[in-house]
């Protein structure tokens, strides 16, 4: 009987890792710029499609394709912040939201035109395999997701805490004016923050693609999941994002086991709404 709860628990933890990985970029951008990027889900899927292109046309392994995808996504992220989002803040309160929505639209439909609504995957021989814990079997791809999540979380934390740029990003998020007076070029800093978030989105996109099939419209779903992770775990905290992901993942798999698989996403949505209603700043939030 213990097998019944053990499987969803382990699956939940591993799945939570993927969710955390997806959410980290969103968390950092919000922590720094107070911007919840409505296009984040679609940017992650863009990462998936980018990897797909590299895998299909260059025959590389998806993880290896990151060598190309990361710089590309970095550049895209920097450009989006510099030319679009950065300007949006000066226009009006709603402008960043609407522009983010527009970016999401553009990405979704570009993908639809380029790749058709057919679902795609980044599967490899090892991602389809399973490993065993005791008597139970789990997909290797889930384990890879979790490992990637932990690595990215540690890397981002170290970056924010140890490097000058990382400290500048943190400072700019806590007191914009003081940061300016310290010689920090806020525009540049925001650009880097967004670009780094995109890098983490690129990584998330690859691992997502290795775990689940994706379509041009998958973005919305993952935006909501990422948002849920971020508000459970607290905005701007990388560790909190990891914890938030685990919590959400476990809730989802437990719900799936006891209430039926079709309700899984519904439970996630309900959790998001409930948390929004009672504690929007999250468990670790400031």
């Amino acid at each position, binding site marked *: 009987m213990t097998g019944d709860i053990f499987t969803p628990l382990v699956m939940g933890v591993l799945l939570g890792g993927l969710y955390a990985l997806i959410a980290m970029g969103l968390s950092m951008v919000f922590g720094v710029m107070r911007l919840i990027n409505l296009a984040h889900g679609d940017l992650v899927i863009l990462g998936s499609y980018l990897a797909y292109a590299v895998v299909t046309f260059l025959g590389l392994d998806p993880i290896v394709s990151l060598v190309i995808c990361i710089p590309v996504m970095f550049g895209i992220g920097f450009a989006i912040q510099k030319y679009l989002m950065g300007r949006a803040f000066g226009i009006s309160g709603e402008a960043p939201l609407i522009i983010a929505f527009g970016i999401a639209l553009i990405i979704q439909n570009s993908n639809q035109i380029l790749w058709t609504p057919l679902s795609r995957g980044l599967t490899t021989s090892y991602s389809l395999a399973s490993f065993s814990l005791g008597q139970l079997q789990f997909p290797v791809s889930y384990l890879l997701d979790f490992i990637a999540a932990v690595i990215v979380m540690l890397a981002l934390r170290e970056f924010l805490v140890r490097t*000058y740029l990382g*400290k*500048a990003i*943190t*400072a700019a998020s*806590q*007191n914009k*004016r*003081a*940061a*300016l*007076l*310290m*010689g*920090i*070029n806020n525009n540049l800093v925001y650009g880097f923050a967004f670009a780094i978030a995109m890098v983490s989105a690129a990584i998330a996109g690859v691992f997502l693609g290795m775990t689940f099939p994706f379509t041009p419209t998958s973005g919305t779903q993952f935006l909501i999941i990422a948002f849920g992770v971020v508000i459970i775990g607290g905005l701007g905290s990388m560790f909190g994002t990891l914890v938030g992901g685990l919590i959400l993942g476990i809730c989802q798999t437990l719900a799936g086991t006891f209430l039926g698989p079709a309700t899984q996403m519904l439970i996630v949505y309900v959790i998001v709404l409930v948390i929004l209603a009672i504690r929007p700043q999250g468990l670790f939030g*400031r």
Partner: protein
Amino acid sequence: MSQEILLKISNIDVFHGTFQALWDISLEVRKDEMLALIGANTAGKSTLLDTISGLLHPTKGKMEFEGKDITHLEAYEIVELGITQIPEGRGIFPEMSVIDNIIIGSYGRRARQKKAENLKRVFQHFPILEKRKKQTAKTLSGGEQQMLVIARGLMADPKLMLLDEMSLGLAPIVINELFKAMKEIRETGITIMFVEQNVRRTLQEADRAYILETGRVTLSGTAAQLKEEEGVKKAYFGI
């Protein structure tokens, strides 16, 4: 006190949107002096400091620092040239540690090279900060936070330091300590320009002062001169 002019402001107008805050302001800051800016709350003192720091830009007139035109430079460029502002209300980075707050001051290229040297000096001026260096900035007392932001400003290796209402909300003992520290800092070759509400105290500490009223310079002179001025006596000392 030398006669060499460090910062020269000539006839600037500054607007907040469509509202004019400063009218035809001209002033000079001389090397190694303690210069005070006195005026009521709405006189435009903070606006002037923000303009010097590059957060605002004049619509008319010119500002020169060490002979270089800084009128339209961005804030981070002005910091790089050697002007640092210690803002009103402390302006700490609340969730970062004390040492991180201090170090971020040396973000600029020039400052980063002198980081170790400046850090030693900063801890000499404010030993309590070294003691508390791992604490989160928001747990410090008001006086300690003020020291923190001054320390942070020093790490930027400034030639001119602008202090906006340094003594706001602090006990007299603490204020004395801070002024003592500012005098020590001046001895190390940094020029200081400060804005204060407490006029009597300000004229005690400053070498020279400008008086600002509703966006215009109405009086200027040495502290001794201003103390004798009838207008100042009436307006600020109620005599």
